[in-house]
């Protein structure tokens, strides 16, 4: 089945530093979604990217979809303690009927 690889698994940053997580697939993706899960919480939708090369911004968060639609990234500028949590990408491939989640990147922000 389709696999979505996400790196890094863990990231510790000082408050104010930047953070990036990457999501890669061996197959072309129809679209990609990003979710945030706070400790002890449930996944919350952040954004969906559909077009090749698409870039979307939400305040300090920048999301990119690769030109080949096989990879994506989430970049947070000047992290804050409120950014703590695990960030998941999730994707459909052209053939898969299910939304497959990556393994997530757990972000810790040190004050």
């Amino acid at each position, binding site marked *: *089945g389709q696999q979505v690889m996400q790196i890094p698994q863990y990231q510790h940053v000082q408050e104010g530093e930047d953070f990036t997580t990457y999501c890669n697939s061996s197959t072309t993706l*129809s679209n990609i979604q990003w979710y945030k899960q706070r400790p002890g919480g*449930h*996944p919350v939708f952040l954004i969906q990217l559909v077009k090749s090369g698409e870039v979307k911004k939400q305040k300090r968060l920048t999301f990119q979809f690769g030109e080949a639609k096989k990879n994506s990234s989430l970049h947070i500028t000047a992290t804050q303690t409120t950014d703590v949590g695990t960030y*998941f990408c*999730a994707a459909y491939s052209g053939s898969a*009927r299910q939304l497959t*989640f*990556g*393994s997530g990147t757990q972000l810790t922000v040190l004050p």
Partner: protein
Amino acid sequence: EAGVAQSPRYKIIEKRQSVAFWCNPISGHATLYWYQQILGQGPKLLIQFQNNGVVDDSQLPKDRFSAERLKGVDSTLKIQPAKLEDSAVYLCASSLFSGVNTGELFFGEGSRLTVL
């Protein structure tokens, strides 16, 4: 707008016992999902319903897991008999649409199962 409701929030059982989880999706959402999330991993889809029909249950261990969505609204997920490796959070989610144009999935708080 009310979110996805799940119960119970926590359940502790011994192996070989049975357990059932309930989910009520957001009103009007045709698609309902059950995901299993083991600690430190991403959610893994167990079963997806479109109204009261099953769209995908390819990763559901059918020898012990069963799920139904009667009347196309709320749903129950049952495990019988439970194994130690079933310890996880069971997340229910719903969406307005299905397939590649699904858009946002709305998750419930989850039901945390511990099997001793």
